[in-house]
């Protein structure tokens, strides 16, 4: 029989877990509203503003509607997997966020402001989020219809391709910090400055990869409405559809939190405010929430700005550009740390800046590079009979 401390620990973990989960669900609900309103403002029109003041009750109305809708069970679907798929997606999405630290240890009324803390923090979190691809792919496969199958396949191929870029982008950070736990990474940044300064190049590849990982425009091919209905979502109705949407938005929040924690100093606030209100840079939640909100805004902004890539362009972009660039960043960071570590870290920052500027300046050249076919033209190969990008 475990003692009292064990039960208390369990109790507080459950309380924190439930808080995180419901916090995420509320954020998701209001995120959909904010997204619609912001998209509307960017297109010079009003978003939803009829249900409640400023449309604030719109998410509630949507939620109630999706609960009271009929839950269809498609005859040709594999019933077990069809039901399981959205559950997998939402479980992975919600679990992943629990590992993000929202403040220093013990700052949340004497409790630690995270649900679980793994020594392999970043890697564990990437592992959990990437399990979400099972939900999407199985959902597409189990629906027993052709559009969902294609959408699911595309989605699986896209997510695993960009996972490489994501995994390789964080290697530079691990090299600099020497640990994979979020707490050490944030602590390192408090001492040495935000990691985006030293890993600007890695941030660029990481940002692009996370857009692709969470299926957002310009990489939302799996659910390209104009191309294949709603992809893996086609056969889903009512709450199961809502669960998939929820998983997507929660993943977006997690990706934003990941970027804030890895590159933008995590839960630490600006130190210069310490003179005004002592201890303000250590307040839990507030700084992380501000940073997450900023990245969520970027997600919406990009959606209103960029057109979608074609599928073949998307895969080429991931394999021929993001992957080699992230690898290069790893090698360069490693080289610098081995031979020029004594010169301090600022030259590394300069190197990253030069690389980033070069990337922007040469973007036209780079586009040609990844869009020209690399394989030798085969004489025996007949002309393509399928339309481009039809895979």
């Amino acid at each position, binding site marked *: 029989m475990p003692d009292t401390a064990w039960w208390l*620990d369990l109790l507080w973990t459950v309380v924190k877990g439930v808080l995180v989960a419901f916090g995420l669900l509320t954020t998701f609900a209001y995120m959909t509203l904010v997204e619609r309103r912001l998209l509307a403002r960017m297109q010079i029109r009003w978003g939803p503003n009829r249900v409640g003041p400023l449309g604030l009750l719109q998410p509630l109305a949507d939620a109630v509607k999706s609960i009271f*809708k009929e839950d269809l069970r498609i005859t040709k679907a594999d019933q077990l997997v069809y039901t399981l798929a959205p559950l997998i997606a939402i479980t992975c999405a919600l679990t992943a966020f629990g590992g993000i630290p929202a403040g220093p240890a013990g700052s949340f009324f004497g409790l630690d402001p995270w649900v679980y803390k793994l020594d392999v923090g970043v890697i564990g979190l990437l592992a959990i989020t990437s399990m979400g691809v099972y939900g999407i792919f199985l959902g597409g496969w189990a629906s027993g219809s052709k559009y969902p199958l294609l959408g699911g396949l595309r989605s699986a191929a896209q997510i695993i391709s960009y996972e490489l870029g994501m995994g390789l982008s964080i290697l530079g950070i691990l090299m600099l910090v020497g640990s994979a736990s979020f707490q050490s990474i944030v602590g390192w940044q408090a001492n040495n400055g935000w990691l985006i300064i030293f890993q600007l190049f890695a941030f660029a590849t990481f940002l692009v990869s996370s857009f692709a990982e969470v299926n957002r425009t310009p990489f939302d091919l799996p659910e390209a409405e104009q191309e294949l209905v709603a992809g893996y979502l086609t056969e889903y109705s009512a709450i199961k559809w809502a669960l998939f949407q929820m998983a997507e938005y929660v993943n977006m929040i997690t990706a934003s939190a990941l970027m804030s924690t890895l590159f933008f100093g995590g839960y630490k606030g600006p130190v210069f405010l310490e003179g005004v209100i002592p201890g303000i840079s250590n307040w839990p939640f507030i700084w992380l929430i501000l940073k997450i909100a900023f990245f969520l805004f970027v997600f919406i902004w990009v959606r209103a700005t960029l057109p979608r890539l074609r599928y073949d362009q998307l895969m080429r972009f991931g394999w021929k550009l993001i992957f080699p660039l992230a690898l290069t960043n790893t090698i360069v960071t490693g080289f610098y740390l081995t031979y020029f570590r004594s010169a301090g870290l600022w030259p590394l920052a300069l190197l990253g800046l030069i690389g980033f500027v070069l990337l922007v300046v040469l973007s036209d050249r780079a586009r040609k590079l990844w869009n020209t076919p690399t394989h030798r033209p085969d004489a025996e190969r007949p002309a393509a009979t399928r339309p481009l*990008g039809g895979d």
Partner: protein
Amino acid sequence: MSEFAHLIVMLLIAGGIGVLAVVVSILLGPKKPSASKLMPYESGNDPEGTGRERFPVHFYLVAMLFIVFDIETAFFYPLAVAYQNVGAFAFWEMVTFVILVLVGYFYILKKGVLEWN
């Protein structure tokens, strides 16, 4: 409680919320199934085949490449975390490994595996 127990608690909570939502929806939603309502969607036509057709081999290739290169990444993680303790030797080991992997990468590039058309 160990940290992995916390992770499992979080997993159970997350999964529980999903199950709860589905169960509540099944209990509260209307149930009026009909044959045409439960038909797989095929743009309004009667569906043909099973919906689990053969699909292009490209997806298999990408998945296999992912396995190869993801294992490469997995080998990098311990190296990266221990990097500041192992010195120049580790860097050249890493370069050698990357070159070996890149040989494979250029091979698939020239074979046109990443071309998709």
